């Protein structure tokens, strides 16, 4: 069959499968992007002088400088990644007597690859694609082999030692040295092997496919999001999300997409200034970008119409929106220093859950709207198929 050629093999198993007729998903067409002030500029022309945002800009840049990893950290992780890559490449090219698994390819992914690493989180990610199926034994075997080879290499250079620890995603190589660094080796397998996975024998299907997705994400990022403003915004947003409980569930991939959208997606297609983009990010999330029923951000690395935020569960979507809404109002009242983390708020409390007063204006947090109802709410939006991003922040 000639025509069938384009049919198979696209997208992840589980999406589009399950015997759904293709016509039964019209809602994808119905979802609308949220209101976005930058894109709605013509309908709302500015009729009052723009506020002086230099304070915010300064604060953003300052915070970003704090978030950038130090040169020592960078070089530590760089050297570890290089060595590990060498070892793994050798295993791909010449496995020799190594029989625990066969390696197809080794790729760097995640924040290290993207250039969005943060200070204090010196963890790089490498995805190893196995030709064989990723059994736990295979992972262990690979981990031992890598440990052995790497230590050999380190000894030759006289550069300390490493240790390997297995976990459900693969294993982590940690180097002990002046500046500690770690590389998470994330194990996955060839795409065609995905459906052969069995829960009790192999690594989890979701984990495996998320690692494959991580490769796609890195590639997309390389091609589309190399603008340094995007990286700046990613660091700031990641930091902000990490410090506010409601925003914590946002995956790095969502943040990447959000930052890219905020910086680049404007009528002029020129990178927006960082302060505008930061406000825009808050405003979009507050405006329901990541709520059910919203088109959200289309995931460029998944099959058509996938939305990035559906990986969150409904309660998390609600909490993320509510937190961003409170933060938006705090920032609007001049509280950006707290939001950015330049200044701790009242003994480390989460500002998004506290009532604050700014120049006599009371800013109060919002109650969650999502309720766990016995009868599941008809949100028609519960896509659990979204793929969790397994890449370190």
């Amino acid at each position: 069959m000639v025509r069938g050629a384009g049919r198979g093999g696209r997208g992840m198993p589980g999406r589009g499968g399950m015997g759904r007729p293709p016509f039964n998903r019209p809602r994808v067409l119905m979802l609308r992007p949220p209101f976005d002030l930058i894109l709605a500029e013509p309908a709302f022309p500015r009729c009052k002088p723009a506020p002086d945002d230099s304070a915010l800009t300064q604060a953003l840049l300052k915070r970003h400088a704090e978030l950038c990893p130090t040169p020592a950290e960078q070089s530590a992780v760089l050297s570890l990644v290089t060595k590990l890559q060498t070892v793994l490449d050798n295993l791909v090219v010449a496995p020799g007597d190594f029989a625990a698994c066969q390696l197809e390819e080794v790729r760097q992914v995640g924040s290290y690859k993207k250039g969005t690493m943060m200070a204090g989180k010196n963890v790089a990610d490498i995805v190893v694609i196995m030709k064989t199926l990723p059994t736990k034994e295979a992972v262990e075997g690979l981990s031992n082999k890598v440990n052995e080879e790497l230590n050999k290499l380190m000894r030759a250079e006289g550069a300390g030692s490493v240790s390997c620890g297995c976990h459900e995603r693969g294993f982590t190589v940690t180097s002990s040295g002046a500046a500690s660094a770690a590389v998470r080796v994330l194990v996955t397998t060839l795409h065609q092997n995905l459906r052969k996975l069995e829960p009790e024998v192999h690594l989890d299907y979701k984990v495996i496919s998320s690692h494959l997705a991580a490769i796609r994400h890195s590639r997309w990022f390389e091609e589309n999001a190399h603008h340094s403003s995007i990286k700046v915004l990613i660091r700031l947003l990641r930091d902000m999300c990490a410090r506010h409980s409601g925003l914590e569930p946002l995956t790095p991939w969502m943040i990447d997409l959000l930052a890219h959208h905020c910086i680049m997606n404007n009528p002029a297609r020129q990178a927006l200034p960082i302060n505008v983009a930061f406000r825009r990010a808050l405003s979009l999330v507050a405006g329901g970008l990541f709520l059910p029923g919203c088109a959200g951000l289309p995931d460029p690395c998944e099959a058509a119409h996938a939305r990035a935020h559906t990986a969150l569960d409904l309660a998390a979507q609600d909490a993320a929106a509510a937190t961003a809404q409170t933060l938006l109002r705090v920032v609007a009242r001049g509280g950006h220093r707290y939001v950015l983390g330049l200044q701790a708020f009242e003994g480390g409390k989460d500002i998004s859950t506290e009532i604050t007063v700014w120049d006599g204006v009371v800013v109060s947090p919002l109650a969650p709207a999502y309720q766990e109802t016995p009868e599941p709410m008809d949100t028609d939006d519960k896509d659990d198929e979204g793929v969790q991003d397994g890449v370190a922040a």
Partner: protein
Amino acid sequence: MMAANNYFGFTHGGTQYGAATAGAAYGGQTGYAVAPAATAATYGTQRAAATGYDTAYQAAAATQDVYAAAAHAHAHAAVAAASAYDASKSAYYQQAAAAYPAAAPPQPQPTYDAAAAKPAYSTPATYTQNTIVVQGGARAGGGAKAYGGVYTHTHSHTATTAAASYPAQPYTAPAAQPPKQSANRGNTAYDTALYNAATMYVAQQNKTGGGGGWKNYNKGGVGAGQQRRPKPPPKAQQLHYCDVCRISCAGPQTYKEHLEGQKHKKKEAAVKLAAAGGGAGGAGGGGGAGRAGGGAALRCELCDVTCTGADAYAAHVRGIKHQKVVKLHTMLGKPIPSTEPTKLGGAKKTVAGTPKIAFVASGGLSTVASTSTKEQKPPQGDKDKEGDEKEDEGETEPEVQPVGQDYIEEIRGDDGKALSFNCKLCDCKFNDPNAKEMHMKGRRHRLQYKKKVQPDLEVKVKPSMHQRKLAEAKAQRLLVRDEIWARRRMHEGMEEEERGYWEGGMEPWWPRGPLPPHHHHHHHGMGVPYGPVGRRPETSDDRHVVAKHAEIYPPEQQLQDIQRVVSHTEKALKSLSDALADHARPKAQAGNKAQNDKKDDKPEGKEDGRDNQLFSFVGEGEAAAGGAEGAAAAAAGAGTAGTAGTAGTAAAAGGPRALKGVMRVGLLAKGLLLRGDRDVRLVVLCHDRPTVTLLKRVATDLPAHLAKVKAPGDDTKYKVELLPAEGAVQVSDGSINVLVSLTSAVMREPAEGGDIKRDDKDVLPRQKCLDALAALRHAKWFQARAASLQSCVIIIRIMRDLCRRIPNWTPLNPYAMELLVSGVMQSAGAALSPGEALRRVMEAVGGGLLLDHGPGLRDPCEKELVDALGNLPPQKREDLTASAQQFLRQIAFRQIHKVLDMEPLPKLKHATGGWKFPRKRRRSNTDTEGDQPNGEGKVVKTEEKMDASENSAKK
């Protein structure tokens, strides 16, 4: 001439071929002789160079009209420049088709461009098409069908058999074939063609022979093994022998029964399948290939039985069944092959580089067939090669490397000795190390290993009955599908349509041909996901908003009451204006007045301002002056009163009226009245600055005029109240209040600052007059901009209700709210359903649009940049935003009823299941509710108009 030859050869060959499949004499060499002759003429030199292949070639050409077809295609290739044969088959086809009527003039071309022509045949579909065109439809459908089927067969064989690399070369890089090929390049191409032909021949033989044994068996006979069907035994023989099942029957009756029996039919079907489509099945259909599936299987040629090992074979030979068959065959005088087993898995290596045609000619067909199956398997690691070599040396059982050592854990006793082993993959235990070894080599373990660890591990598959059935079913499906395709191609004909189908999902293509439905769905779904998809289905949000809207929409009676009171007031004002005008120029305009009266009586004259436009008091007789004044009034409405207003004063020389016209403003003009609204506004445009004197005059005179315009039976009591601070009079009938403001475009003229002070005491409050003017402009803006946006009016009504209900929203003034909503709608870029629209408004406000750093709401009715919401204090903005944010999340989580303050509507019946908008429901909604959700604004408007016309009809 040469092309003609080719053409002839092709058709001829084609017909002959059809005949051959029909079971006629196979050795009809003469029929095919044309094709080789033609090709020989074309490629004389190459052929001379390649004499080594001659015999094989002859055989191939004689059998394979496919080759002739290739030559034929070559003639086209010559015409249509080889470059056309790039990857796009469509281009090829079109060009070829175009070239064809030109009788394809011969083109002496030294190099045989078979490789270039080859890609055209890479798909069965194209091939079939070509056939049809070439034969001009002269061929019967059945013939085409058989042809297509056969082609698939051979094609797949070339793909699999011909040592992988060979056909792959032209397949992968067909576009790269430049026409300027060197001679020896051509030679290889020729080789390719030759080899393809040879392999096809093999396949053909294989097919007709239905496995090597059969062929061998028949060798002593006619030498034509294509007689697959059960034929009645030769008459001379008394024995009833079934060829397919290799049994004899006692008498004609039993023989007949046997022929009708299920067992026989099954076998026959399997054999046929092997003949027609077995090769297409890849995995070896049901035929010889499938039987050869077992790697090192041994075959008893006589009984057509495959044994998995030497022991099994020996047992078979000793067995009673075998003995029976031997006896039978001896009786029949049929040749009995040696009892030596034919090795099936013995995989003699056919090296890709050198096509061993001689090998084919030698008649070792079964071996070749098995080669093909062997070659299909993915290349293995060292151990498999090793196994192959061993097999070559004549060993029957391949040595299997144990796998999965890592997955066998040793359970050790206290002394550290291994007591037992546990295979984690297969979940079984052994006590004996030997058993462990055996297990690790065993098929079950290997299968588990393949399944769980290394997917590309080769495991010898025992062709079980079930698998065989599956393969047969698959082959059958393929066959049917090919047939459908072939038939469809015939219907289709045109390549343009094909492309249209791919690119746009063109409609005309649809009704044709017997298409399997899943194709429609699939491609349609892919091709036009963003196309016009008809009406959007109504969401739950939409239903709630619409229901709420119906709740707050004013009842008919209320609208009629308002309509009546306003209409009366307008008429009374008109009458008053006339009276004032008459009073101002009693004598000069007497005739004019009569004329006016006449005009008023005219049925088509405008009776009141129900079209929400300015209801001018100026009669037609005063057109000269009135025209300019009307312009002035309109200009005031448009916010450019500054210049036009002077024009109005210039026209005043002609004896202007004091009250020029009246217009509905505010809720009434915008159609935003809600249930319970009692206050409406009219604005009267005055010629000059409205003074308190004028206002008093209006207040005193209006009741009389109101009484005059009332319908005879109407006993409504109107009360007129003077509100000098408001610059207005209020007309009330007890329940409905009409505020009539007086204003004038002149009030906007700041240039005459001195003049304003002149009669300051008497002039109405300036701010009130300006407000009234602004209200005029707002009404006009609304009618021009907002009312036309889909869902805008309905959402503004909903928002008005919201602002009335919720304290946080009260500070949002109506005009700002209208600006906000219309801006939000406008920025959506497309029509929004009511539910979406409300959500989008909440998104905008929740996203911080109204916060301090936002852009503000620019008032389009002012020349300067004015923020319609400029005076909102920060705390109010904050509260408004927070409230909108909460609402937004409530809407998102299906609690829109909380936002709208209503009971949640019950779910629709069809809302069960994960998919919210099943077709059925959408349809029922469309049927019952018509245009409601989308055309709401317009519907309301027309309703109002209908009310009005009903009113006037009553009068």
